[in-house]
């Protein structure tokens, strides 16, 4: 019997290692797999590359991981917010590397990784400093820039419902980057609010099919902070 549900964060984190690239779901306060990030902290892994939309806020989750000096490089679209002080201090001190990627390009680079597409041409960022040094070509009369697939060693995902095959649903804007990242990593680890019996989820409404999921841990943390 396939059973991707694991009983401990230790099992969920099996194989986590120094230098790993971690895709981290979530957007704003919603869909953040914070308990999985805490578990990454517990593993002691360092020299990490983190791919996320933001650069963390306050002193929890990603911000805490950075504060502990465990993140070598962050790849994100928006490293600035009223509470992203940890990142900003580290960055000014030259203690963390930053790669800025337009939000849609970030999503598409991971979608490409999940879909076996090596690289793609996009009009986004053409003529800007984010395209400097990148290959461009004119396609159908429009200049486009070449962007490469962005793979993860691990994806950390927050889901609403999960079954033992790893099928997932999300809740409203908690969906965000989570389903895309789930496809793009060697090992996809999910924290789910609800574990449901196989067959509970509507086959027409499963957002992430279990084929993309390796481990699921039950984390009924409730609603995101407002």
């Amino acid at each position, binding site marked *: 019997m396939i059973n991707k549900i694991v009983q401990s964060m230790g099992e969920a984190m099996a194989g986590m290692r120094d230098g790993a690239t971690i895709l981290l779901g979530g*957007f*704003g*306060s*919603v869909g953040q797999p914070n308990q999985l990030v805490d578990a990454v902290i517990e593993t002691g892994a360092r020299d990490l590359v983190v791919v996320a*939309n933001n650069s963390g806020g306050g002193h929890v989750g990603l911000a805490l991981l950075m504060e502990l000096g465990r993140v070598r490089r962050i790849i994100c*679209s*928006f*490293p*600035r*917010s009223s509470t992203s002080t940890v*990142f*900003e201090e580290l*960055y*000014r001190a030259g203690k963390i590397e*930053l790669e*800025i*990627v*337009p*939000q*849609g*390009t970030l*999503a*598409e680079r*991971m*979608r490409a990784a999940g879909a076996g597409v090596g690289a793609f041409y*996009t*009009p*986004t*960022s*053409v*003529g*800007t*400093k*984010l395209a400097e040094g990148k290959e461009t070509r004119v396609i159908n009369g429009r200049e486009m820039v070449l962007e490469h697939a962005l793979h993860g060693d691990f994806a950390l995902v927050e889901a609403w419902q999960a079954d033992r095959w790893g099928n997932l649903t*999300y*809740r*409203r*804007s*908690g*969906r*965000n*980057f*989570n*389903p*895309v990242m789930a496809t793009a990593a060697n090992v996809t680890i999910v924290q789910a609010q609800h574990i449901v019996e196989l067959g509970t989820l509507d086959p027409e409404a499963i*957002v992430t099919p279990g084929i993309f999921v390796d481990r699921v841990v039950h984390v009924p943390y409730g*609603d*995101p*902070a*407002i």
Partner: protein
Amino acid sequence: MSAVAEARPWTRPQMAARLASDIPEGWYVNLGIGIPTLVADFVPTEREVIFHSENGVLGMGPAPAKADLDPWLINAGKQHVTLRTGGCFVHHADSFAMIRGGHLDLCVLGAFEVAENGDIANWATSENDTAPAVGGAMDLAAGAKRLWVVMEHSTKDGRSKLVRKCTYPLTAPRAVKRVYTNLAVLEVASEGFVVLDMAAGLSRDELRARTDAELIFPA
């Protein structure tokens, strides 16, 4: 400057309302952070305009009453919002497929500068901005069918934000179609900014004096 004092510049809500009046029913629209967000308030509910948010919300409705707040539903500006009847959720790659694929009829953004050739700069305040935050601005500017900018006509220290050539790092070249400021509504044409409308009491010369770019007044 004193001449302009006699004019009655539009307030931010007025700028938003003016822009909103130009959005026809049925358009799919993404509104950026700041003044653009106000635009939604001026689209009457009986005129169905479908608002998109980068984080995978299509058919976004207004902010909820405190009691009805759904902690699971935010927009790209991280504000709590609602979903209109008929709206739906998609993931980030699908959301930006809508943007990049040209499926949005309109995107409204704020800007630091708009050049007379349609260049827009709205994400980084200098070449030396070490950790600028781009978010979805470049995708929206390059991807939507139309890009309209709503912004103050001048910076706080009085420099024109309408320029011959952007000095800040570009968000996208030749992307802006129309600009709504507190002083005027301008269309980007091949020869410069065509003035479609002006704040009451403002003369052409006054507008020229406040604008560091070519202005064209239709006959």
